[in-house]
């Protein structure tokens, strides 16, 4: 059961039960829908970006513990960060959940998001953990409107 405890850490369960920044954000500057067709997870993400900085960020939707807590922790983490930085965090987060070695420094940078390291032992759950991040990228890239996790 130890891998499962690694996956479902207390922080994750807490954010699943009480997601932070949950709700719609109006008005907002950026917005996207995310969808994982394989397990039915749905996510709607709202951002208010001012001068290249994420002033506010919220989400709604329904999903499993991993995707809900990931969205919740991501929104907490990103508030106040610059758009330019988010792309780097996206890459680092992706490396974290897919088990690509991450330098101690980069891991440090991810702060609380490090709790998702347990996902690497569960390849089928990588999509859950990264749905909110894919949705984020799409929200920032205005040409696409529905994010999907890769198949």
């Amino acid at each position, binding site marked *: *059961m130890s*891998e*499962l*405890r690694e*996956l*479902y850490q207390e922080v994750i*369960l807490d954010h699943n*039960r009480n997601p932070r920044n949950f709700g719609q954000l109006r008005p907002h500057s950026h917005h996207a829908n995310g969808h994982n067709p*394989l*397990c*039915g*997870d*749905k996510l709607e993400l709202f951002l208010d970006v001012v001068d290249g900085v994420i002033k506010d960020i919220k989400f709604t939707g*329904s*999903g*499993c*513990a*991993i995707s*809900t807590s990931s969205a919740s922790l991501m929104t907490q983490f990103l508030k106040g960060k610059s758009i330019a930085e988010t792309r780097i965090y996206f890459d680092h987060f992706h490396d974290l959940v897919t088990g690509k070695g991450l330098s101690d420094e980069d891991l440090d940078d991810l702060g609380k998001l490090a709790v998702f390291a347990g996902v690497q032992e*569960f390849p*089928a*759950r990588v999509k*859950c953990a990264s749905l909110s991040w894919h949705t984020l990228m799409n929200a920032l890239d205005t040409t696409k409107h529905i994010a999907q996790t890769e198949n």
Partner: protein
Amino acid sequence: MIDINKVRSNFPILHTEVHGKALVYADNAASTQKPQSVIDSSSELYAKNYANIHRGVHQLSQRSTALYEGARATVRAFINAGDVKEIVFVRGATEAINLVASSYLEPVLQANDQILISEMEHHSNIIPWQMLAERKGAELKIIPLLESGDLDFTKLPQLLNSKVKLVAITHMSNSLGTINDLTTLIDQAHALDIPVLVDGAQSIAHFPVDVQSLDSDFFVFSGHKIYGPTGIGVLHAKEKYLENMQPYQGGGDMILNVSFEKTEFNDIPYKFEAGTPNIAGAIGMATALDYVSDLGLSAIDQYERELLAYATEQFQAIDGLKIIGLAENKGSIISFIMEGIHPHDVGTIMDMEGVAVRTGHHCTQPVMDCYNIPATTRVSLSFYNTKAEIDIIARAIRKVKELMG
């Protein structure tokens, strides 16, 4: 009577481990495991008797042809079809339904006509009709689903009328387990000269099917859900329909005579089997049907009903667990949801206990929409499962609660 030890010894995969735990395979509605005889059937074909069929005078080709056509005869007998020529080999239930959509219904369907399906259909029995209806400006009509998991057949009198050109309905729901009694529906449709397609993808493995007494016009199923190989399935159609249907795919074997000016098509069922078919698949499926026939579908039905009753009791005893679909007449499928816990998390945790269940919408999104849930966890049982395994499953569900609680 099912001799459970003997049966389990026939399935090599049941003796493997997952995450260091003995495998409990409860994902049988998605696909079933294969007995050794089925596994050996293709090895033996390829090691001793294989060649391409139908057009060869040499020994190996004759042997392969005899085995392939023998498989057709086995299928005929298994579902008690009137004639071997009513049996068309396809990739699976999905292709069979698409074949009927394109070769039977497409040429006759007009704008404003209707196709009647139900709210508990698998996507494979929705999308081909939806795509066709859209192309033709026809309408998809739906027999509604009740909270109980039964279809609301009281709506039939309004829904069945002369605009309906085909009824396509499942024999047994893959997400709810509901077994539909189709007698009245088929009688009433036939009274209006409307043909009925029965999706037997689930029913075929759980209770005896006799297409003549059922009086279905089209009956479809997949080999992989009845202990046979992947990539092979069956369309049964009454001869009167098959004879008049347009050819499906073009290619070798489905023609009598080809010139650039004119092509003469072959007789049924060959008209619908263009190209080299899944020879090993058909032969393997027949081996699976033989295996199941030896056990006896009635014995299987009885055994699985006992499992279902036991599992239902065990699961209902778990606090916060709600079974979705409690129809009177059910096959051995239990979908459930758990308060505050998403099925995807349930699936992962059960997997770590060695228990294979399916989570998600099970290709029946309209059913999920009807119950207003995104997904369920589905335990689907076979004659090779045991009460002891159900206890393990129930224990795994309790672990989920513990961990996520």
